[in-house]
Structure formats: C-alpha cells, structure tokens
C-alpha cells in the first residue's frame, strides 16, 4: 500500500504557516495599488467623454461671444492660440490683421450667429456666410436615403439568418456580413466614387454623378452590418420556449417569425436602427467622397449635397485657428456630438429597458 509522506516539515512549513495566520488583516500593497490603478484607469473612459464635450464645445463657444462684443474676444483667441510666443510676434500680427479684417467684414454684414440661420453656406468669401440650413438639409436627405436602403435590407436579412437559415448556412452568412463592418469607410467611399456613381448614373440617368442618392446608398452599406448584427441578436434573444410553443401549435416558421418573434424583438430592432442612424449621421469619408459636396437647398435626391460631417472634414484643414469659420466647424461638431450622444442614450436606456420589462413581465 502506498506510503503517504508527512506534511511539509521544517522551515518551509514555518514560513507557510506564519503567512497563514489569519487573525489579523494583512495589508497587501500590490493588491491595494492594483485596485486603485485599475479603478483610476477605468475612470479615464468617463474622463475622455467629458473632455470631448469640453474641448469640442470650447472651440465652438466663441461664436456666441462674438455677438455681444465684436472685436475683443477674437483677440483673446489669438492670444490663446499663439500664447507666450514672443518669437512669433510677427506671425501674431499677421493673424491679428487677418482676423481684424475678417471682423470688419462681419460687422459690415451679419453677426456670425444670425448668419447661421441663413440659407447660404459660403465660408470662404469676402462676405462669409455660415448658413447651416443647406448642411442640415443635405445631411437629412443623405441619412434618409441611407436608412431607407439599409434598414429594410438588413432587417430582412437578419430575419432570414435568424429564422430560416439552416445552422450551417447561418454560420457562414453571419461572419461574411459582419466582415462588411471591417471595410474602412474610405474603401466604401472609394467604391461609391469609382463604381457605384457610374453604375447608378447609367441606370437612373440623372445629371450630377455624385449626389445624395449615391452617398446615401454608400453610407447605407456602412450601416448594414450594424443594423443586421444587432437585429439578429435581438431576434435570437427571444426565449426558445416562445418559438417552440408557437411551432408546437402548428404555426409555420414564417408565422412564428412574424407573429411571435418579430413583435417581441421590435424594441431591439429599433435600437439597431437608431445605432445605424448614428453611424450614417456621423459618417464623414463616404460623404466627402460620394455626395458631391455642394451646399445647396434642394429637395431633389439626385442633386449634390454637403453634409455636416463632410463640411468639417473638408474645411477644417484649411481654416485659421480661432477664426469664425474654425469656430463654426466646431459648432457643427458639437451638434453632431450632441445628436449621436442622444441617440446612443435613447438606444441604451429607453429601448433596453423596454426589452427587459417586456421579458420580465412575461416570465
């Protein structure tokens, strides 16, 4: 029979046992430190969101100040941008002149914040106008087209994947469609610019090659994987018992899909569409490359448009730090940020809670 050796003897035993006296709480520095550091780093995510708020808004804010006092605030801005730069004196002067001259123009025309509501976006001219309406309208048009294209096709594809596809097919379809999410938007934009624009023009025969329609379809492509994946998740999250009960009562898969699963998944699908909308709304590269970038007020989906985000992308590189134009671009950024933040909050809190409540009441 096996001879069991004794327990660990001598010194090792002592050290082990000494450590194992548990009647007094031992302070462990590395554990303490690890917890503090981990907590602090995790907190940084919140800090980043707050900083984005602060820094995007901060640069937009001077527009409103310029209304009350016309010249003074621009001067502080110049100081801020080139603050403490004694060697850069000459440069400061030139910038000062530039802004002073642009200020003169402003006072001769509208104040910047009134100009925001005008119908013309013409930031680089002798009489700069910062009318946001054409940009809003353009964004709205493109977003609507993109959503009308992406939402139905994604939802139907998700229904097929979740409801009709055989498990083996499903395991192929899902990753393939999710790969679309990995396509950089500049690639989709390039494809839209080079291929889709021509193909669609040949089909529909409209005048301008790049327009809201082409841009909308291309942006829809970017939103498809989001809406598809989240819808599919919402559909498969429905408890199996519901489905089995329905099939057990003699309903076909189609009837089960439409009368049992779909109604239960509606909040989830809505959340999917809302997040897809957020993606389309903020999409920059595709808008830059495929919409034609003409800021005009028109209801025709085949006219060129300029979206809010594309405006920032196209013009930010060329503006002067602290210029009104610069501030207006940040203002547009703030609007984009507020809007997507709100969309996310709605998707997160409202729809999730609806889904949860629905299931709890049924359990």
């Amino acid at each position, binding site marked *: 029979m096996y001879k*069991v*050796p004794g327990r*660990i003897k001598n010194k*090792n035993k002592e*050290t082990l046992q000494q450590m194992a006296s548990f009647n007094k*709480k031992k302070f*462990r520095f590395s554990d303490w430190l690890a917890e503090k550091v981990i907590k602090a780093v995790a907190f940084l995510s919140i800090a980043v969101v707050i900083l984005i708020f602060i820094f995007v808004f901060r640069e937009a804010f001077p527009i409103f100040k310029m209304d009350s006092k016309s010249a003074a605030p621009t001067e502080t801005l110049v100081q801020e941008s080139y603050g403490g730069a004694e060697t850069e004196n000459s440069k400061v002067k030139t910038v000062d002149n530039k802004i002073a001259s642009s200020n003169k123009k402003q006072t001769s025309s509208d104040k910047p914040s009134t100009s925001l509501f005008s119908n013309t976006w013409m930031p680089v001219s002798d009489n700069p106008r910062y009318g946001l309406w054409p940009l809003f309208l353009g964004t709205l048009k493109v977003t609507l087209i993109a959503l009308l294209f992406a939402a139905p096709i994604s939802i139907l594809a998700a229904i097929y994947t979740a409801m009709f596809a055989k498990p083996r097919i499903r395991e192929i379809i899902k990753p393939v469609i999710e790969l679309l999410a990995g396509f950089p938007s500049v690639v989709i934009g390039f494809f839209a610019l080079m291929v889709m624009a021509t193909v669609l023009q040949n089909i529909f025969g409209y005048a301008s090659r790049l327009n809201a329609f082409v841009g909308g379809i291309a942006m829809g492509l970017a939103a498809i994987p989001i809406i598809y994946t989240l819808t599919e998740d919402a559909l498969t999250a429905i408890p199996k018992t519901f489905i089995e009960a329905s099939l057990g009562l003699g309903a076909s898969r189609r009837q089960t899909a439409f009368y049992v699963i779909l109604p239960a998944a509606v909040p989830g699908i809505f959340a999917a569409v809302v997040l897809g909308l957020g993606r389309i709304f903020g999409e920059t590269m595709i808008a830059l490359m495929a919409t034609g970038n003409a800021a005009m007020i028109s209801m025709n989906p085949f006219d060129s448009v300029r979206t809010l985000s594309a405006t920032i992308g196209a013009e930010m590189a060329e503006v002067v730090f602290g210029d009104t134009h610069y501030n207006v671009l940040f203002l547009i950024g703030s609007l984009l940020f507020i809007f997507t933040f709100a969309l996310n909050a709605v998707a997160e809190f409202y729809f999730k809670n609806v889904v949860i409540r629905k299931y709890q009441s049924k359990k």
Partner: protein
Amino acid sequence: MDDYKVKVKDLSLRYGTNLALKNISMDIPEKKVTAFIGPSGCGKSTFLRTLNRMNDLIDNVTIEGEVYIDNINIYDKNIDVVNLRKKVGMIFQKSNPFAKSVYDNIAFGPRINGISQKSVLDEIVERSLKQAAIWDEVKDRLFHSALSLSGGQQQRICIARSLAVNPEIILMDEPASALDPISTAKIEELIHELKKEYTIIIVTHNMQQAARTSDLTALFYLGDLIEMNRTEIIFSNPAKKQTEDYISGRFG
C-alpha cells in the same frame, strides 16, 4: 482550548431574502473526516463554503453567526480571508486544474506565497503529489498540461495543489461525484490516508461514501442541520425519524 478544530455557532445565511441556512451549530473535531449529507439543495455545500468564506464572492449573501477555527471567529471583521483560505483548502465538485502544466498547478500556491527557489518548489511539488497518491502516475509528465490527465487524476492533482499550500483543514465539495467507481475508490482511499494529518470535511450525496469514509456524519435538510453524530450511529441507530427516513431512502 478544546479539541474541536471548527466550531460553528448559530450560523444563518441568506441569499437576498431567502434563508438558505438556519441557525446551524456544530463542532468538528481535528484530524477526523466529517461528512455532510442530505438531498440536493439542502444547504450542505453552501454550509461548506462558509467555512473558508467562499460565499463572500457571491453578491447578495448575508451571513449571521460565528464560525471559529482554532478559536478564532473567521467572520470577525479583522480576519484576513486570504490567509484563512491558505489554512482551509478546498476541493471542488468539478475538478478545476489550471490550464498549465502539472508542475505549475502544484507550484501555484507556493509561488503566490513568494516561494520561488527551484529546489524548494521541486520538493513541495513532489511531496504534495506523493501525498495525493498521484506521484507515480505523473512524475514523468510533470510538464505536460494538467488538462491532458483523466478526470480522476485531475481531481487528485487538485488535491495535491491544495496540499502544497499546507492547509490544516480540507473542504471537499462532492469531490468524486463526477468520477467513475475506480477513481472514486482512489479518492476515498486518499481521504482515509489524509486524515492522519488533516481535518477533512466532505460533502457528498452518496450515503455509502459517507459511511465508508467518514468518522462523523451530519444530515442537512432544507437549510437545517437535522442530526450530527458518529457515522456508525447515524447509519445504524439515528436519533431522529427524519434521519432514518433519509438513510433508508424514503426521501431525498
């Protein structure tokens, strides 16, 4: 000081508002095997996990009462739970070796205690594996993954891993429930050997196992401790009708 290694006084445990253990009091002697039996859901595993404060990890658990180990109340607020667990080892129902080599599994405990010298580690690994009666089977495979072993071997690796920390009490939560009869027999044999050095507390739903391995047996039912006594008395001449019913298979 008396002979009892573990003394439990009026211990109650709640999951949220659900009372899972009701006023349990018991004394557990040193270097003996004590078995907890009872139908599933009776609270025996929950109770076992209060003895090394494993329930601390679960949200929503509130515990009242006292558990003394070596006359120190482990629910005192000054208790160092980490060191407590070094003294009170635990073997789980499902064998759970780390996805590391056999050697690294056994050396895990000593290493976290700051032992890094190779010769010392080697010695502890060998001794622990021998104590767990698995040295001969794995001595040529020390650096293979522990997951490549059979279920019974994995469970003995877990026992060896726990022994390497040099505990005084070993809690076993249905250690053989997932094993075949031969592996089970090996574990039981091992328990028999280990009690010379360690205080062993074992939860089992297998009454024969309790009868074969333990010196004392406690029967739990719906969060109550029904009866606790020497094993041969529990199985031959229980004081309570409920115990007799359970032993003879009338419920549970």
